[in-house]
């Protein structure tokens, strides 16, 4: 009978993705570019937030966008109309973006002439939370009509994000949503998260959001210079 041997491995299954994500961050730092990974459910307001952000910030920062969808170029077309370059990734069924896909998109972008790249990840509150895209900060949107129980259902997503944008606050009073309950649930999972209330439709709160983003970009630029 052949010998049975136990071989210890202890190798991280996602180490390839993590290593590539770190490489991406290194490359972005060399080019002094800040990258934000934006996640949310379908219809949460990712594209709307990106459009609002571009309109408010394109005079101060050179912006590029990476659009991730299973199919269609609709979102990239919407963004390009705002006057900024966009690369559309069509995953053909893949439910999240990973570092290798982001690297492909970045290879199409002129990093020397960009300050901010926003990734619009696939509409999904589950899988994107598991895969490092090489971004500097993680952002998620929860829209008021989705309900204040989502932190209970998707704890990983809420726990890994640096900022939570609560969108569609113009629905407060119509939807069954308690902002205080939401904040309590979110802070229990992630005490350091920044919560910003906005309405992409009315524009309320967008200034607070762009101020946060500008601060993060400037912090990143300062550390890249040193």
């Amino acid at each position, binding site marked *: 009978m052949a*010998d*049975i041997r136990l071989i210890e491995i202890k190798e991280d*299954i996602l180490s390839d993705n993590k290593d590539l994500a770190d490489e991406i961050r290194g490359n972005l730092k060399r080019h002094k570019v800040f990258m934000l990974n934006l996640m949310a459910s379908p219809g949460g307001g990712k594209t709307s937030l990106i459009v609002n952000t571009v309109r408010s910030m394109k005079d101060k920062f050179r912006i590029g966008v990476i659009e991730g969808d299973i199919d269609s170029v609709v979102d990239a077309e919407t963004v390009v109309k705002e006057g900024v370059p966009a690369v559309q990734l069509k995953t053909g069924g893949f439910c*999240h973006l990973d570092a290798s896909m982001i690297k492909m998109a970045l290879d199409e972008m002129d990093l020397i002439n960009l300050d901010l790249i926003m990734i619009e990840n696939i509409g999904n509150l589950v899988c994107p939370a598991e895969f490092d895209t090489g971004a500097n900060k993680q952002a998620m949107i929860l829209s008021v009509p989705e309900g204040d129980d989502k932190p209970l259902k998707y704890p990983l997503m809420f726990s890994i994000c640096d900022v939570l944008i609560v969108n569609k606050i113009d629905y407060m009073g119509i939807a069954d949503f308690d902002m205080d309950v939401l904040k309590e649930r979110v802070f229990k999972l992630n005490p350091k998260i920044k919560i910003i209330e906005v309405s992409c439709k009315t524009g309320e709160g967008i200034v607070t959001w762009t101020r946060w983003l500008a601060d993060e970009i400037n912090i990143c630029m300062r550390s890249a210079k040193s």
Partner: protein
Amino acid sequence: MHELSVTESILNIVLKHAQTNKAEKVLTIGLKIGELSELVGECIQHYFDYLSKGTIAEGAKLDIERSPIIFRCNECQNTFQVSLSDTKDFTCPQCHGVKVTLTSGREFYIKDITIS
């Protein structure tokens, strides 16, 4: 859902180590997956059975150990375990501190393989 792509990674790593150790057959694969990960063990075995056909890892059984979600409180250094089905509260039960560090629960690695 994305169990297929992670299963491909598992198979590649296993075959690499099996080859280095001159294996004829891979019998079992020990995996450690943290409880915060939403990956489903049965799906991984199912995809593995499919992807490993024709390789020396065909028929290998996946032995999945789920590692618990454990936090250490930054304030009182208390360590505590959390079960997601019981609570979504990650604050310290001893001092009610909110500054906590996750020390276990997001792992995803291959512990070992048995080969012949």
